[in-house]
């Protein structure tokens, strides 16, 4: 599929509906990007005000998801799309769900900041896990940016890069969890802090998973191949073939 296809239908309103849908997804993506960026800042500066802003933004994100669903239903009901148009609708619904879930996970990260601000506890910020949280969520933010760019350009190699990056983040997450577990063993005072940290780390890691899902939806949209449930070798080969293109 390439972008010229939007203008290839005889029906002008059909073109317009698809174009609307495409732009709406990116608008929602931009919103989640902003939400994630605000969240990263709130973690870095331990700023409760920013964390509250993140929660406000989540309401907008949820509304956008409903709007995308509405647009998809409209095209499905009126135009009975086939081939690449149908794939666009299917991936739009999937991407919207992923973005919405991302929004929820971002709220969880901000929840850590709010909880810590309530306790007025500064020790927690000095933990190694906290730094890794910032690292993972910053990477998640860059992945989200890249995957949205890949979606805009229908760029397979961009999507492949995001999928590879997600594997790196998994390793980072494993290291961070190990360290937090170590801390659990030796300290008995800051259990709550560590627990919150685990939640937030998990949420950050989930965001990268959703970014990967979006990348997979982009691959599906562009060449119709489903790459979920591929084993490691198959996946590596497949990614290589995408990058070569």
């Amino acid at each position, binding site marked *: 599929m390439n972008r010229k296809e939007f203008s290839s239908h005889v029906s002008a309103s059909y073109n317009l509906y698809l174009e609307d849908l495409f732009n709406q997804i990116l608008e929602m993506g*931009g919103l989640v990007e902003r939400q994630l960026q605000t969240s990263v800042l709130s973690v870095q500066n331990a700023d409760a005000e920013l964390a509250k802003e993140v929660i406000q933004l989540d309401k907008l994100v949820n509304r956008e998801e409903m709007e995308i669903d509405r647009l998809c239903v409209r095209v499905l009901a009126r135009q009975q799309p086939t081939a690449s148009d149908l794939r666009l609708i299917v991936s739009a619904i999937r991407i919207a769900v992923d973005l919405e879930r991302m929004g929820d996970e971002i709220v969880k990260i901000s929840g850590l900041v709010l909880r810590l601000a309530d306790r007025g506890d500064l020790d927690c910020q000095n933990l190694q896990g906290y730094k890794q949280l910032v690292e993972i969520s910053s990477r998640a933010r860059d992945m989200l940016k890249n995957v949205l760019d890949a979606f*805009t350009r229908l760029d397979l190699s961009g999507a492949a890069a995001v999928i590879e990056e997600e594997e790196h983040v998994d390793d980072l997450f494993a290291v961070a969890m190990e360290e937090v577990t170590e801390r659990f063993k030796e300290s008995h005072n800051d259990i709550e802090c560590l627990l919150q940290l685990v939640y937030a780390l998990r949420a950050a890691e989930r965001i990268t998973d959703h970014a990967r899902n979006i990348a997979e939806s982009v691959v599906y949209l562009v060449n119709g191949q489903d790459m979920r449930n591929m084993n490691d070798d198959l996946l590596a080969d497949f990614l290589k073939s995408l990058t070569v293109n």
Partner: protein
Amino acid sequence: MISIKPVSSLEKSSRIFEELIGVGALLSIALILGGITALWGLAFFVAFSLYLGRNLFYFLHFLNLVRSRALEPSKAPFGVWGDIYDAYFEKVFQDKRKLKRLRLETEQVYNAMNLLPDAHISLNEKLQIEWVNNSAESLLGLRQNDAGHRIGNLLRQREVTHYLEEKNFDKSVEFYLSAESTRRLSAKIVPYFDKHYLLIIRDITDAHNLAQIRRDFVANASHELRTPLTVLNGYLELMLDSVESLPPVWSGPLTQMHQQSLRMQNIINDLLTLSNIEAEGTELEQDFVDVPIMLRKLEVEANQLSNGHHQLHFHIESKDGLVGKTEALRSVFINLVSNAIRYTPEQGEIWVRWYQTPQSMVFEVKDTGIGIAREHIPRLTERFYRVDTARSRSSGGTGLGLAIVKHILERHQAKLSVYSRLQVGSTFRVEFPLYLKKSVTDLDSSLS
């Protein structure tokens, strides 16, 4: 490519001549044949068929030539068809030359666009990318094959989205390249070429940093200077209170030291005010400012300041006030009036007017003072700019008054204009936009 000479009228007539000769030759052949065989009808029919056949052949040949878009001229045939061939090849040749020139010019423009240091992106009516130049590729990471995408899909920064939605392209917008990038960019859209837009993005990191450094420096320096100065001032006042107990030689220096320290304190206070205004951002506060009442109070203060040396005339012609910041506007009015008093010789006259014009609410201060030379006027609102250094210092100014006025007026979307003639006097006019006007009755009705 063989160049073809333009068809001249002489050649054209010669070609018709050729054609006539050809027809004449055919006719004479027919006559001879007819004479020999006495089959007149057949002879003329054969000659006519030959003529028709030749024409048909060249007609088809020409059609093929046009269809195949052959650009190399083949040999022009004899007669009128020669004219047609010549004309066609000349047209093709000219078209080709024109195309070549156009292509060259386009390439030249493209190369020039690619050399521009700022990112230039051409957008169509729906804000979709048409082309981008090299700087846009290196600065923003856009690609040539991004053509057709909406620019808002690729630049998803909040400020940009907002700017594109607002469609107020008189302004420009500043934003950071990405979440972690320190590069500050400024974007502006210029409509061009019939429903197309040119998005120009430039890297203003350096300028932005410089402005920030200047602001920070002024704010920090004045803040740091204030504390030591307060200590000095306090002790000086203490010493002046008991000046009798000190050697009489010291009373003069002490008074002078006290005066200078007070002056320094004024400067620092003004600097702090200035950096506060700058830090406040552009949002306008929604206070109601009752300008007539404020001016009546100001009249009393101005008379005290003038101490009877000047004739002050206050003409408050409008009963309406403004929406804005009370304290800030008061300092604008005080600054302008006290400037007038300071620079007007004794017995001079000063008029202060508050009135409404069809376009704006106007506050005007007119004096019969020493006036300002033309070259100084554009620089009056610079910090520490002084027209006459010695005179201004002796009159106790800080050099910051008009800078403060300018900043406050910018926040109120108001315009300051200065008209002046040396030795005759100056007029300072402040025009507030009418949408800031608010009268006391409006206020009452909104309260009830």
